[in-house]
């Protein structure tokens, strides 16, 4: 068996900088870097640039039935974005979702990882696999499955679902939060667990021999050492939350409470289907920027805390 979660000396200490000399192996470097570089430019950079460009255009018509032409409109679309109530409601909705769901999911993932790493459990292989299996279920499929499980008459838990309407306007957001949690807890657990495996055992065997309990070891020794892994899972979860699309889109066929403006990405989709490409592009740009800023801030924030 192998672990790829290695922390070797070669990795932590950067290769000593050599003083300037002519670049060796120019051709080889080009062959290695270019395929990715070209594809990255074509399918990341150019689309981003094109979205920004589209978001700066407005459609003008001569009279009511005249020919539509796209002209430069400056920040017109962005003013529309900021005046768009449903868009900001959808942003508020996913933020609320994230503030509750991300800590619950990561808390569970951390708990399971610590239990897997402790000497308290038997059958670790089984638990690891069982908890990870939901990650094999695509979001769309998971949402379809849980949609049935929530429904008042088809659910195996009809005693519960007949009395609590998980698909109602008040609860459907949290019903979706449960689907996302169900899929991703095991994945986050594994990321955290592999960070735990990278801690040399000697570090806490000493603490154990001094009489520290598992709880105390987990809190004072293990958790501080795996902060980077937790930060990583946190960033991915924030990105995922702002991008919510598949699950709510599927839930539209189970619950009328999920509208076409339920999440920011659903707004992008329904606006582009109108079609109002320019406004949809502006939504996309604002959303991508917000995601970027939020995850970047989170990264910086946690890193500073780390350094103390």
């Amino acid at each position, binding site marked *: *068996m*192998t*672990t*790829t*979660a*290695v*922390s*070797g000396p*070669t*990795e932590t200490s950067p290769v000593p900088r050599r003083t300037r000399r002519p*670049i060796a*192996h120019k051709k080889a470097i080009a062959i*290695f*870097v270019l395929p990715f*570089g070209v*594809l*990255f430019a*074509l*399918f990341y950079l150019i*689309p*981003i640039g*094109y*979205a920004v460009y589209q978001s700066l255009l407005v459609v003008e018509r001569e009279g009511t039935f005249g020919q539509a032409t796209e002209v430069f409109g400056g920040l017109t679309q962005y003013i529309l974005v900021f005046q768009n109530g449903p868009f900001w409601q959808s942003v508020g909705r996913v933020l609320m979702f994230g503030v509750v769901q991300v800590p619950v999911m990561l808390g569970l993932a951390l708990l*399971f990882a610590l239990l897997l790493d*402790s*000497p308290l*459990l*038997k059958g670790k292989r089984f638990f*690891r*696999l069982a*908890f*990870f*299996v*939901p990650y*094999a279920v*695509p979001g*769309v*499929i998971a949402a*379809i*499955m849980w*949609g049935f499980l929530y429904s008042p008459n088809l659910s*195996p838990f009809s005693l519960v679902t007949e009395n609590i309407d998980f698909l109602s306007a008040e609860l459907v957001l949290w019903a979706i939060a449960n689907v996302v949690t169900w899929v991703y807890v095991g*994945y986050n657990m594994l*990321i955290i667990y*592999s*960070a735990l*495996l990278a801690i*040399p055992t000697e570090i806490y065997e000493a603490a154990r*021999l001094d009489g520290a309990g*598992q709880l105390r070891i987990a809190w004072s020794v293990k958790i501080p050492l795996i902060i980077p*892994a937790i930060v*990583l899972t946190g960033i991915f979860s924030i*990105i995922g939350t702002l991008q919510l699309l598949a699950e709510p889109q*599927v839930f539209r*066929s189970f619950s009328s409470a999920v509208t076409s403006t339920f999440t920011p*990405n659903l707004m992008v*989709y329904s606006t*582009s289907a109108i079609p109002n490409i320019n406004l949809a592009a502006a939504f*996309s740009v604002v959303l991508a920027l917000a995601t*970027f800023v939020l995850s970047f801030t989170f990264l910086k924030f946690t890193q500073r805390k780390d350094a103390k």
Partner: protein
Amino acid sequence: MSAPTPAPTPVATRRSALRSSAPKGDFAPKESPLSKAGAMIVMLIFTLYFLIPIWWLFIAGTKSSDQFTSTNPLWFADFNLFENIGALVAYRDGVFLRWMLNSLAYAGGGALLATLIAAMCGYALAKYRFPGREVIFNVVLGGVLVPATALALPLFLIFSQVSLTNTFWAVFLPSLVSPFGVYLTRIFAAASVPDELIEAARLDGAGEIRSFFTVAVKLMFPSLVTVFLFQFVAIWNNFFLPLVMLRDEVLFPVTLGLYGWNSQVNQIPELRGYVLIGALLSIIPLIIIFLLLQRFWRNGLGAGSVK
């Protein structure tokens, strides 16, 4: 392990290996039975939470449509699994099978190429010094933070400029880019490919490209499997891109196809059975891949967080 790692790697103590040879109980003080029982109970309850939905889906797949509503949802009635699969495969000239094959082509082909492309770039970033190296790496890192769904709409606009929407390529080509893969492979290359070995290959007269494929790929192999797995799952689960790109049902991946059926269940009730059995079949390939590649993801998925 059996994966080809011919040369000693400069890797610190591998704790999992230590662990299997020295069970902890031998030297650590005994844990109280109470905390052991507590831990076990928590894990067992959550095992039910994670597995019951899948169990339910499996049971639902084995039932005829009358028995689906009239019998215990969590236990078998008459075993109709194979009849159900047969009916699903026959429905609308086997469009479901087509979707499964499409998903395999998008995810399998895409992930394989994406891994290779990312590995070459990550390796170059780790092992060569050239101007612009840091810039490239930072741009790629920025790319990790740009979510794939934010790109779906602009990609659609661009592909429609060149009349490539509603084609296989519209979904396949964007899947070849994995910034996270570059980030991971750069770390892996730095950690597991010693400079001395590359030097040695050079002295033996091997070209740079050849020593990448003969030396580096072998040393990085377990981590490349991890990148492949990541990308496979990402493409298999991708929904927004095919949703905006594809109109022709023959090109759909299985997620989009089942989504389409599920949203018509209210008008065409018999689709419900097909959606359920289709959902069950659609998760089987990923579960098989996870089981086969278990030794890679079991401890390796978090490799990127080490740094």
